[in-house]
């Protein structure tokens, strides 16, 4: 059973065309929700951690928000260098079974054209 679902799978944007990516989750007792950016052929790079509903984090053109069931990554006036795959991951409350492992979504591939 999928615990983390990202949509859409792929997104093609014109430069300057703002949009949002969705990450919905079904885990109980969320400890943290993480957003990563991954460029082709490279490892994921950390962007944000969100811990509680209502929390927001911003970095340049990216803004992440969190509700009790989902998170959004808003891309405002994107540029071609924002092209990447964006991954979200959730961490459940700590147990000796989970060891704080992250559950990753499949990612959203974003392409921004000039």
């Amino acid at each position, binding site marked *: 059973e999928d615990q983390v679902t990202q949509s859409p799978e792929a997104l093609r944007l014109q430069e300057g065309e703002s949009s949002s990516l969705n990450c919905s989750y079904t885990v109980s007792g969320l400890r943290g929700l993480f957003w990563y950016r991954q460029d082709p052929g490279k490892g994921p790079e950390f962007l944000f951690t969100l811990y509680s509903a209502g929390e927001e984090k911003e970095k340049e053109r990216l803004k992440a928000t969190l509700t009790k069931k989902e998170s959004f990554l808003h891309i405002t006036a994107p540029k071609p260098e924002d092209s990447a795959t964006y991954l979200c991951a959730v*961490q459940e409350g700590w147990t000796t079974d989970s060891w*704080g492992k992250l559950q990753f979504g499949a990612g959203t591939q974003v392409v921004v054209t000039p």
Partner: protein
Amino acid sequence: DVKVTQSSRYLVKRTGEKVFLECVQDMDHENMFWYRQDPGLGLRLIYFSYDVKMKEKGDIPEGYSVSREKKERFSLILESASTNQTSMYLCASSLVGGGYTFGSGTRLTVV
């Protein structure tokens, strides 16, 4: 700057070879992880370790083993490489309950 370093960016190995992928972190993190990433399948956890000499199977451990003799180093071993193990391999580390820091990845091709 904190780092997770994977020893090779690209590797080409023959079927049946024993393959070692090395990962070193300089952040004194307790947890270390090995993932593989394939198009359409996302990140899949192979093994993780929460302490020196400790290991736990992930979702796809078959055909792999790991070794963690020192806190900073976590090795992934392909006992007898097969073509279906051609993939991107990613190492990560974290503090207990923290987010992950990933390495740059090793693209392994088994021919």
